[in-house]
């Protein structure tokens, strides 16, 4: 983990999302599925984002503006500087034989970088609307389904090694369908580095910190 003030290189629209490109500075991109805490200008706490793209000298984040923090980040302009901490948490285990990326909505965020590191495996992506589905263009080999079809409806009988990211109900369904799937989960986080005990999820009757034990967890591992 490293903390740097870095400059915004560009802020581009991708469907309803913003692709925020930051100067990399001395930050390492880490493993796909790891995340960074981004300063949200004017807010007290930073916000967690999966690394989405790692072009040379840049870090790319795909941002959905849903509340005050993400709105402030989505409004950033080239030339502005924000504080960034990362990479944080445990990313995906990349030693998989037959990867299939399964994602829903903004859960597509870590896949461009993940796909690159896995040499373009197949991906199955679900979106609310065709407008949202424009983000699928960032992921090679992607099959897209739109509501009301769910990714779990379109899952092959033998899905192989599933690496998934998306809304909790989707991950919960995969938890039942694909034991051993790698699930990138979310929880509200204050710090992202184990300091606050705010991001806990239940595991075996105890609460564990998702930012330390996750955000990528194994289906069937007892973590919800």
């Amino acid at each position, binding site marked *: 983990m490293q903390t740097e003030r870095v400059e915004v290189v560009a802020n581009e629209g991708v469907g309803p999302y913003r692709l925020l490109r930051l100067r990399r500075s001395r930050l390492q991109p880490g493993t796909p599925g790891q995340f960074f805490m981004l*300063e949200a200008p004017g807010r007290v*706490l930073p916000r967690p984002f999966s690394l989405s793209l790692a072009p040379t000298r840049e870090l790319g984040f795909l941002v959905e503006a849903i*509340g*005050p923090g993400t709105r402030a980040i989505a409004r950033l302009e080239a030339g502005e500087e924000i504080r960034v901490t990362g990479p944080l948490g445990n990313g995906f285990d990349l030693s998989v034989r037959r990867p299939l990326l399964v994602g829903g909505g903004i859960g597509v965020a870590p896949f461009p970088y993940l796909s690159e590191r896995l040499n373009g495996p197949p991906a199955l992506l679900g979106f609310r609307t065709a407008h949202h589905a424009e983000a699928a263009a960032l992921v090679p080999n992607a099959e897209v389904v739109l509501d009301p079809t769910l990714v779990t409806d379109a899952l092959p009988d033998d899905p192989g090694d599933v690496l998934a990211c998306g809304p909790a109900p989707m991950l919960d369904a995969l938890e039942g369908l694909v034991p051993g799937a790698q699930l990138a989960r979310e929880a509200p986080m*204050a*710090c992202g580095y*184990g*300091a606050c005990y*705010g991001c806990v999820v239940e595991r075996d009757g105890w*609460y564990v910190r998702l930012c330390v034990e996750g955000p990528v967890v194994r289906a069937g591992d007892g973590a919800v």
Partner: protein
Amino acid sequence: MGVPLLNASGCLDPLTAPEVARSLDVVVTKTITPLPRRGNPPVRIAEVEHGMLNSIGLQGPGIDVFVDDHLPRLAALGVDLWVSVGGFSAEDFARCCERLDGDERVSAIELNLSCPNVEEAPETAAELVAAARAATTKTLYAKLSPAQWDIAASATAAVAAGADGLSLVNALRGLALDERTLQPRLALAVGGYTGPGLRPVALACVYACAAAVDVPIVGMGGVVSGRDALELVAAGASAVALGTVLFADPLAPGRIRAELGAEAAARGFADIANPSSPLVVRTGKNLQTDENDTA
């Protein structure tokens, strides 16, 4: 000599962020209770406009696992370590303090008399301090709540009962509602309110207690900058603890130490820790810890 910087209890895990721990002068553990505690159900945190709410609920391994398992790893970091202890009765405080008494890896004990996320202890703060005092010869800091009419009276009682210093302040209680549904955002609704909105309250508490008692005070509450830290010192603190700011900026200790030095120097106040400086509203007292410091 600068003003010692600590983390606020519950705002840093030195084991997951050793580099942050090493950038502080003293590291304070999250509050440890006699028995293991699961803590409160999530959602546990919510940002508000000028701070945040937390409802952690003293999650922890209990004093025995702490001493046997965590303490050796904490000691290996080579930082000056204070242990925060808490509980629900005088007996609880006594039990934790007894277990730490004579442990040379621990340079002071902070008594969390004021967690906003657990029910009120039936005893008064002074009774809890007295029980802790009877159980250990270690340096004891009493951590008080700002949610009381006359904090100086509590401070006086805590010192009379044997506290060697004060930690001021813990969180206030706050509530935040979801923008859309208007339902509470935390699972248990109310949580501890910390961060910038707490700052004027913390400053008033330090000021009131510094006038009432003659023991060192660790000031905290909403510190974000060196200027904020300097103000706590001017109001009577001899050391400053960083809480919420660590979440936004893990480099805060180094940054704030530098800013504090610059702000003090800009006011012609070269030796910030010098209690005789006319700029200090209240006489600063030096931070007191046991002589068997590990650092």
